[in-house]
Structure formats: structure tokens, C-alpha cells
């Protein structure tokens, strides 16, 4: 029995590695000096939000490491012709994404989800927020009140869109940008500048890197059965 189950596990592992679709991995680098982040002083002046922070938080438009490791870049795939990959969403069965409101700021401020994927908006603050979305692609717009300790808000969006805006008008410095894809082939670069787009089926693609301030860069890539590396360099003049 034990031997049999061991053989089964080995068999499954082997089978998985054989059909393993490749990952697209890469690093995003920023060259040049971006404008310095601005302290969000109105947050500190707010009687409820201010005490939630020891230091004044700043804007997060350019999140850059010491060696130019560039975070918060949304990397996604288009087909070889540069068209959106549609109808491949696994959003309905994917784990929900979470957008938290903490310290009167959205966390994370850059997020990506699939069409039909559940997005949970949470309020971890001792104050009221209003969750206000604005779409440029025809997604349903919301403006919902969320009380402290109030229940989570559950959203799902059905149209692909880059950087759909979430904001709170009670605290007018609160913003998050949620990108929506009709496929699971996307990633966001971390503070080390690295990203991984997992399980990409073999074929020719266009890799698209989007930064909210610096716009879009593309590279053609052919994916076989091995991982492919695609690096991007953004520049601030």
C-alpha cells in the first residue's frame, strides 16, 4: 500500500513537470531620479487618521530600491499582435483579492485582479471610509460607505481595465489603482523589482509593463517549455 502510494506521488509529480507550462520572470529597473515623494500632511492633521501613524506617510508613485529595483509595475501579456487576451479568465474560481484600508491609506495601492474575481474591500480603521470607484472601461462604478468594523465589501468587475481608480472622498488623499485582466497572466513587481507570470502556455506573446506615472513598455517573447526572462528598464528624464 505504502509503496503504491509512493509510486503514485512520483508518477503525479513526473506528469506535472512534463506538462509544466513555463513562467515568464524578470526584473524591472528604474534609471534616473524620480521626483521625491511628498509627505501626506493632511492625513496627519486628521484627528483620527493622524494618531494611526508614527511618521508622516508619503505618496507612493515611485517605489524604487537602492539599485533601481522598481516596484508596483503591472506586467501582463498580450498576444503576439499586441491584442488583449480575452475569455481566459479563471477569476470565478480564483482566491479573492483583498484591498485593505489601513491607517487611512489603501493597502496595496497597486493591485491586479481577473475579471469575475472576487475583490474584498476591508476597513481596518477606526473611522468611516467611502469606497468610490471610477471606471474608464464601462465597469460598474461604486460609492459605498464602510463603517469601522463594518462588514467587508465584495466586488467583481467584468471588463478588462488598466488602473481603475479607487478613492475615499472623506480622506481625499486615499487612492488605489486596480488593474483588471481577462486572463490569469499578469504580475506586479515587488520591492526587489522582480515579477513572475506563472504557467504561461507555449506560444508567442507581447509582454507589457505598465507604470501609473511612466506609462507602458512592451517586449515580444516566445514561450516554450522553459522559463523565459524578460527585463524592463524605465527611465525618468
Amino acid at each position, binding site marked *: 500500500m505504502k509503496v503504491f502510494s509512493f509510486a503514485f506521488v512520483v508518477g503525479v509529480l513526473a506528469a506535472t513537470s512534463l506538462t509544466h507550462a513555463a513562467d515568464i520572470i524578470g526584473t524591472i529597473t528604474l534609471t534616473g531620479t524620480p521626483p521625491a515623494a511628498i509627505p501626506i500632511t493632511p492625513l496627519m492633521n486628521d484627528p483620527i487618521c493622524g494618531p494611526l501613524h508614527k511618521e508622516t506617510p508619503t505618496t507612493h508613485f515611485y517605489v524604487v530600491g537602492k539599485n533601481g529595483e522598481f516596484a508596483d509595475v503591472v506586467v501582463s501579456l498580450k498576444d503576439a499582435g499586441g491584442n488583449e487576451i480575452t475569455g481566459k479568465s479563471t477569476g470565478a474560481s480564483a482566491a479573492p483579492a483583498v484591498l485593505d484600508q489601513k491607517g487611512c491609506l489603501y493597502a496595496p495601492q497597486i493591485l491586479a485582479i481577473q475579471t469575475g474575481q472576487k475583490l474584498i474591500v476591508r476597513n481596518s480603521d477606526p*473611522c468611516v471610509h*467611502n469606497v*468610490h470607484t471610477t471606471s474608464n472601461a464601462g465597469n460598474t462604478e461604486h460609492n459605498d460607505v464602510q463603517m469601522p468594523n463594518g462588514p467587508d465589501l465584495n466586488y467583481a468587475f467584468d471588463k478588462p481595465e488598466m488602473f481603475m481608480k479607487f478613492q475615499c*472622498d*472623506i480622506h*481625499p488623499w486615499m487612492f488605489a489603482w486596480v488593474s483588471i485582466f481577462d486572463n490569469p497572466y499578469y504580475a506586479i513587481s515587488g520591492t526587489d523589482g522582480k515579477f513572475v507570470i506563472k504557467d504561461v502556455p507555449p506560444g508567442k506573446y507581447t509582454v507589457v509593463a505598465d507604470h501609473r506615472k511612466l506609462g507602458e513598455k512592451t517586449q515580444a517573447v516566445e514561450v516554450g517549455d522553459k522559463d523565459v526572462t524578460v527585463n524592463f528598464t524605465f527611465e*525618468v528624464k
Partner: protein
Amino acid sequence: MNDTKVIRPLHWFAVLTACATFFLLGMGGLVTSHGAGMSVPDWPTSFGYNMFFLPIKFWRGGVFYEHTHRLMASVVGCLTIILSVWIWIQDSRRWMKWLGTSAVLLIVAQGVVGGLRVLLSEDQLGIVHGVLAQLFFILICALALFTGRFWQRISNAGKISVPGSLRALVLTTTVLIFVQLVLGATMRHQHAGLSINTFPSAYGKLWPDTSPQAIQYYNEHRLEIMNVNPITAFQVILQMVHRIVALVILVFVSLCAWQTRRQLGAKDALAKFAAFWLALVVVQIFLGAATIWTNKAADVATAHVLVGALLLVTGALWCMIASARSAPLRAAEHEGFGALGTFVPNK
């Protein structure tokens, strides 16, 4: 009915309503300056509550500006209704009754537009709401003017009639100010921060580069805490037009002040009024520059809105007073009734 009698309490009530409207205009300006237009997501309720019973714990951040604006709007609405009923009862001039009624209709429409701006989350309606507010302010100020003693004296005293060319000049200037105001309202409701953040130069030039590369460059280098929408070439050009129109208005108002003084004499009320107008323009241009230098500080931007409203209303009232002092009207007074329904002079 005796038209020559001025109902002083009614006049003072109209003045009070005008002051309350000015205050409301400022509060509305603060809502937009603080980006708080959508902070109370529902209307006419507030967070599901009857707006008059909204618990104080909600009055925070942007909600404070939006909620107090709604409360003040209700106050002005009530004052306007009382004023119009009072006019119906006590003012014998038929056109005044209808003017009072149109003020009520306008403030109701204004309230509905404000509500729809929230419900539909439509920035364009914010522009309409801002412009309607200015028109309503003119109407209320006109009601205050028409109920006052000053209006009566205009036709009573043997004043010099105001030449048509001068009236045309001031009217043109007033229309120009109105256009400028619409431009300003459009700029304020883009929620995109300053499209040009330097003054008097525009990004170091007389006329800024509006190529896509330049716009991309501006956006890469501007970080905003509140108004995060990227700027567009349209917005840059809009601000340039606003600056140019401001200069044209300065020239026109100077011309109005000079010509009024020359044609009517320095002691004439209209000459003093026009001088005041010129002073306002100078203050307004300074406030416009200060809006840029302070990176759109909410109080400075709101002051710019308020002085803009005063500029428009000054021009509009000047035109109304001048109309009552135009030559054909003075002839009509012998019939006992002016075209605008001015007071009948004592014989």
C-alpha cells in the same frame, strides 16, 4: 398700490438672503477645493440618515465640507422661499413677484443638480452646479437691489442718463467674466490638480509645449496628494485660455472704470461702482496667481471662486442700474411706469 414705498424689512431680508447665498457659495467652493464632492455617497439622505439628524461622528474629513454645505443649502432654500412669498404679499410690482418665484425655481433646480452630481458621480454636473450657483447669486442680489431705497433714488433724482455705448461696454465685459467663470468651473471639476504649476511663466515658457511627450513629462514629474488624475493637453490649453481671458478682462474693466468716470463724473454711484470693480479684478488676478503658487491651497482657490462671483455680480448689477437710467426709460417715467418697472417718481 403705492410703488414709491420701500418695504425696509423686506429689503433687509433680501440682503440677508444674498449674504447667506454668498456664504453658501464659499462652502460649495470648499467642497470642490477639498475634493469632497462625493464624500457623502447618498442624497437626499446622508449615510442613510435624514440629513438634519446625521450623527456628529460622521462630520469628519471631507464629509464636514459636504454635509455643512448641504445644511447651509437648505437654509438658503428656506430663506429664498420666505423671500419670494413675502414679495408676493407685499411688493406690488408684478415682475418682482415672478422674479422672486424664479429664484425659488432656480434654487430647487440647483439642489437637484447638486444631488444628481452625487448620485450619478458626474463631474460635468459639478460644472453646471457651480455655474448655476453664480446665476442664482446674481438673481438674489438683484432682488436685494430692487427692494432697496437706492433703486428708488435712481429714477427719482435727476441723474445723467447712461449712454448706450457705455452700457454695451459693461455688458460685454460682464459676459466675458461669465465665460471666464465657466472656464474656471471646468478647470476646477477636472480633479487633476494644476495643469500648469508655474506663474507667470507656463512651464518656463510664454506658451507651454503641449506635445504628447511634454504632457508625459509633466505627469512624470508632478506628484499630487489629492488630485491624482493625470493632466491632459486640453487642461493645459484651458488654463492658458483662462490666463489670457483674465488679461482681456483686466483691460475691459479698466476701460469701463475710465469711461464711466469720464462720462458720468467721478461722483456718480456707477463710477464708484466701476472703480470697485477694477479693484476686485486686481485682487482676483492676484488670487489666481496665488492659487498656483500655493499649489491649489483649498482656501486660496475658494477665495478665487468667491471674488469671481463678486466680479460677475458687480457687472450684472451695474448693467441693471444703468438700464434704469437709460434715456428711453426716463421718457417712459412720465407714463408712470418704466420698462423695467422702476419706481414712479414723486410729482
